[in-house]
């Protein structure tokens, strides 16, 4: 076999399992054989009965009975073998699970080494301190402002607000039409004059 490195080694357990399974197969094959004999004897018994050979039918049935007892015996053997095979296979699974657990345990231990309680406490303490400093700075900034400063800040805020809201409001009055000075008649005339002009356009088109 070339490239043997990727093929697992055949262990003693492997051979043991194979031997067991081969035994099991043999029993199964034997059972199959008995089953056919059973069927045949049954057939013979039926035929003999049909032709009136009661004795021979009885003989066939006796033979059949004997084979049946063999069959049930082998059933027990087969059960034993299969149980053994499953037990071994299950144990192998257990072994590999155990192996997996062991490895997991090792890894966990390594991780715990990093994660000792002192380290955690120290880090937590350090974070709490940092938070305290932050709060103090905020307080200090809020308290140092004088009344004037506060007012100036408030004024700036108002200005910003009015800028944001009031731009349109202050300009609109300017664009409003001024008080009418001419007589309304001329306006009407203008409108009359304009209308035919507008009307003409669609006609021309």
């Amino acid at each position, binding site marked *: *076999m070339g490239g043997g490195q990727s*093929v697992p080694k*055949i262990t003693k357990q*492997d051979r043991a399992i*194979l*031997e067991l399974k*081969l035994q099991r*197969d043999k029993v199964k094959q034997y059972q199959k054989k008995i089953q056919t004999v059973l069927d045949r004897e049954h057939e013979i018994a039926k035929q003999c009965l049909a032709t009136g050979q009661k004795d021979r039918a009885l003989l066939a049935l006796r033979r059949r009975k004997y084979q049946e007892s063999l069959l049930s015996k082998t059933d027990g053997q087969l059960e034993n073998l299969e149980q053994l095979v499953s037990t071994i296979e299950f144990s192998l699974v257990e072994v590999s699970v155990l192996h997996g657990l062991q490895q997991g345990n090792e890894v966990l231990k390594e991780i715990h080494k990093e994660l000792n309680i002192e380290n955690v406490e120290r880090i937590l303490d350090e974070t709490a301190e940092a938070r305290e400093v932050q709060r103090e700075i905020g307080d200090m900034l809020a308290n140092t402002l004088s009344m004037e400063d506060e007012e100036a800040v408030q004024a700036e805020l108002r200005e910003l607000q009015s800028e944001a809201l009031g731009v349109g409001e202050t300009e609109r009055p300017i664009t409003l039409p001024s008080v009418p000075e001419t007589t309304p008649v001329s306006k009407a005339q203008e409108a009359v004059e304009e209308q035919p002009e507008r009307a003409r356009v669609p006609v021309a088109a």
Partner: protein
Amino acid sequence: MSLSPHTTPSGFRLPSIHAAPPFFTQQPNPATQAVATEQWSRLILSYAKHRNLFTIKVEDAQTTGGDWDEILRNDRINRKLNTSYLAYILEQMERSCRLAFDPPKQSISAVLYWRTPEEWAEVLHEWATSTGQLNTILTFYEIIEPPVPSPLSGVPMSILRRAINLLIKSNRAQLIAVADGEGVRFLNGSTSK
């Protein structure tokens, strides 16, 4: 008369040539016979696949009620293949590697290759993988006579051996021998997947 495909009771669709009376006679013209041989070979293999049949015997041509009745005879046109013609077809199929005489050194009983040994190797490995039997030691017997029917139920030992040997070559199986017999262990294999 009209020659049309026919579906057998087992659900196999016979090609229309199966309804042609001369199809059941060995042809004296070699070119014609080559065509007929090819048609018969394909028919036998596809029917074997349909019915999951692995062996064919020359005597199947003369037994009634056998597995091969549906194709070796056509009662609708009252024709059947005779044994010498079937023997000839089987020999030709052996030449084109579509069957192997089993046991060897005779020519009346053969194992059909409706899957090539390479294809069987893939089926086998796929079965072992999908049923969670990789790395488990299996006997040949439990592969071909599984308690639950599988694609490998009934596969002849000769085919199984060839398939296993192919898997061994690609490191996807390992043969284990003890005094009582042999077993095999399927491995994940180092294929790109």
